[in-house]
C-alpha cells in the first residue's frame, strides 16, 4: 500500500520541491500533488518517483514514518536556515529514528544517564553540576562523543553540506537523541554536541520551541562545560597572546574563537585584548576554517556495531536493504562518526553476546 507521507519524507530528504520532483520524475505537477494528497499511484508512477528520488520502491509502502516534532528540534542558526534545509534536516531525524529502532531491537545500548538540570538558571553552575554528575572534575573532555555515548545519548550524523545546519536534539521515549552535522570542523562538532547537551538537560521541560535565550544559554553551557573555569585559569599564563590562544584551544578541543570568547568571559582577556585577538584570528583565517585542527571524534558505539555486523557478513548496504532505505541515507547517518568507510577493525572490549 503506497504511503504518501513516505513520499513527502523522501522528497524533503532530497531537498526537492514538489515541482522539482515532478520534473525529475517526468510527471505532471498535478499528478504529484494528487499522489502527495493521498491518491494511490500506479506502479509505473511509483517506479518513476523511486528512481527520481533514488529510494527503493519498497520504502514507499511502509507504515507512516514517525515524524520528529519540529518544535522540539533546536537548530543553532535559525535565522540563516532555509526552509528546505530545515525540512531536510528534520527528515534526516525521521530516517534516523527508523535506524535507531532497528538498532535497539538488535543491540543493547547504554542506558540514558543524564541529570535533570531544568531548574538551573546559571549556565556556569549547570555545566559544573553536569560535570560533577558524570565525575569529570575539572579536566578537559578528550572525547565528547564517547562521553555522550557512555551516558546513553543516541548520536547520529547529519552530513548536511550546509553551514546553517549545526545540530539538533530531542527526547523520545525516555531516550536522548542527538544529530550532529559532521560536515563541520571537529571542534565545531564538539561544541555543537555540548550545546545540544544543554538542551537535553537544562531545557528538557521547557517549551519545545527553542528561543534565542535558550540558544545563548546553550552556548554558555557548552563553553563552561568544555572549558572549566579552574582548569582554564590554572593553565593560562597571565598575558595571553593569539599564539597562546591557538596553542590552548588544543587542550580544550575547541575552536580558537570559542577559546578567545571563553578567556574573555573569564576576565583573562580584557575587552581590548579580546577584540584584538578576534581581529588577529580573523586575519589568520580562523573565522573561515579551524587551522591545525584536531582529529575528528568517532563513535565507539557505531564502531562496535559495524564491527559486529561485519563479523556477521552484514554491511551498511545490508542494513539499508533491511530498512528499505537507500544506502546513502545510512551512510549519512553514520558518516563522520565511524572514521572512514573502510572495513572497521575489531576493537578491544568489543561486543559480547548474551546467551
Amino acid at each position, binding site marked *: 500500500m503506497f504511503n504518501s507521507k513516505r513520499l513527502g519524507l523522501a522528497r524533503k530528504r532530497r531537498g526537492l520541491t514538489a515541482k522539482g520532483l515532478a520534473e525529475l520524475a517526468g510527471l505532471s505537477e498535478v499528478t504529484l500533488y494528487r499522489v502527495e494528497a493521498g491518491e494511490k499511484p500506479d506502479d509505473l508512477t511509483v517506479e518513476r518517483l523511486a528512481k527520481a528520488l533514488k529510494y527503493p520502491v519498497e520504502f514507499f509502502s511502509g507504515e507512516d514514518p514517525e515524524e520528529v516534532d519540529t518544535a522540539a528540534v533546536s537548530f543553532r542558526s535559525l535565522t540563516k536556515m532555509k526552509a528546505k534545509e530545515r525540512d531536510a534536516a528534520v527528515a534526516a531525524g525521521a530516517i534516523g529514528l527508523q535506524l535507531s529502532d532497528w538498532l535497539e531491537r*538488535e543491540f*543493547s*545500548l547504554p542506558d540514558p544517564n543524564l541529570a535533570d538540570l531544568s531548574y538551573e538558571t546559571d549556565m556556569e553552575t549547570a555545566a559544573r553540576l553536569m560535570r560533577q554528575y558524570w565525575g569529570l572534575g575539572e*579536566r*578537559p573532555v*578528550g*572525547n565528547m562523543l*564517547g562521553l555522550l555515548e557512555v551516558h546513553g545519548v543516541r548520536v547520529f550524523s547529519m552530513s548536511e553540506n550546509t553551514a546553517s545546519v549545526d545540530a539538533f536534539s530531542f527526547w523520545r521515549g525516555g531516550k536522548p537523541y542527538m544529530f550532529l552535522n559532521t560536515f563541520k570542523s571537529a571542534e565545531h562538532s564538539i561544541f555543537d554536541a555540548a550545546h545540544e547537551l544543554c538542551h537535553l538537560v537544562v531545557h528538557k521541560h521547557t517549551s519545545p520551541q527553542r528561543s534565542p535565550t535558550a540558544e545563548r544559554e546553550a552556548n554558555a553551557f557548552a563553553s563552561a562545560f568544555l572549558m572549566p573555569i579552574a582548569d582554564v585559569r590554572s593553565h593560562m599564563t*597571565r598575558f595571553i597572546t593569539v599564539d597562546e590562544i591557538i596553542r590552548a584551544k588544543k587542550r580544550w578541543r575547541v575552536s580558537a574563537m570559542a577559546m578567545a570568547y571563553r578567556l574573555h568571559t573569564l576576565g583573562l582577556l580584557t575587552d581590548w585584548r579580546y577584540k584584538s585577538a578576534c581581529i588577529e584570528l580573523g586575519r589568520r583565517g580562523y573565522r573561515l576554517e579551524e587551522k591545525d585542527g584536531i582529529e575528528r571524534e568517532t563513535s565507539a558505539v557505531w564502531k562496535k556495531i559495524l564491527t559486529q555486523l561485519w563479523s556477521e557478513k552484514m554491511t551498511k548496504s545490508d542494513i539499508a536493504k533491511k530498512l528499505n532505505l537507500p544506502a546513502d541515507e545510512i551512510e549519512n547517518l553514520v558518516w563522520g562518526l565511524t572514521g572512514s568507510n573502510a572495513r572497521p577493525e575489531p576493537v578491544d572490549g568489543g561486543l559480547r553476546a548474551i546467551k
Partner: protein
Amino acid sequence: MARVATVVRKQPWDVEARLHGLNLDRPGMLKVRTVARSAAADATPFHPLNSPGTLAYHFGTFALRDGNVGKNWQVARPEGVEGIYNASKNILVVFSNVDVACNDFIEPKPRSKKGAGAERVAQDNLFGALPTYAPQPKGGMTVFYFMVDEKGACELSVPVVEDGTFTAYIERNFLSDGGDLADVIDRVDNDGPMDNFDPQVIRKRG
C-alpha cells in the same frame, strides 16, 4: 693581563644549586621569562616599533618582582636601575632583553644601550673582572642580569657593564634554551583530557 675566568654553569643541578644559594628558583625564573615573552608578543603593527622589547622589559620586571618580593627580596631601583634587591646576599637582579642567551659561543649583548646608572650600579662587577691583582672591593653589591632573548632562551648572569653594553662576564648560569617555551601549555599538562570512554554495546540474540 690576567683576568678572572668566567664561571659558566650549564648543568641543571649546578644551576639550581646556584639559584638556591641566591634565594631564587628555576621555575620562578622561567615564569618571569614566559611572562616577558608573552607580553612581547602582544605588540601589534599599531604599536611603536620598539614595543615588543619595551613590553617584555616592563612585564619581565613586573614578574620578577611579583614572583619574588617578600621574605628575601624587595623592590629596588638604585641609580634608576629597576630590579629586586636581596639585602642578606647584597645582590640586585635586573631584567634585560638580550640578543642571544644560553649560547656557548656568543656572549649576550643587551638589546638597548645601558645607561650610566647601570654602569655605576655594576661597578663592583667590573672590579671582579679586573686582573686578579686589583684590590677587590669589600662588601660590594653584585648585579645579576636575568637575560632573555627573543626565542625565550634565558640565563642569570653577572656581566661587566662598560660603554653601554656587556663587555665581559664574571659568571653565567644557563636556565633554558627556549625550547620549552613554545609548548609551555602542554608542558605543564600532567592532568590531560579524559578520553577513556567505552560504551557497552551488547548484541541481542533473536
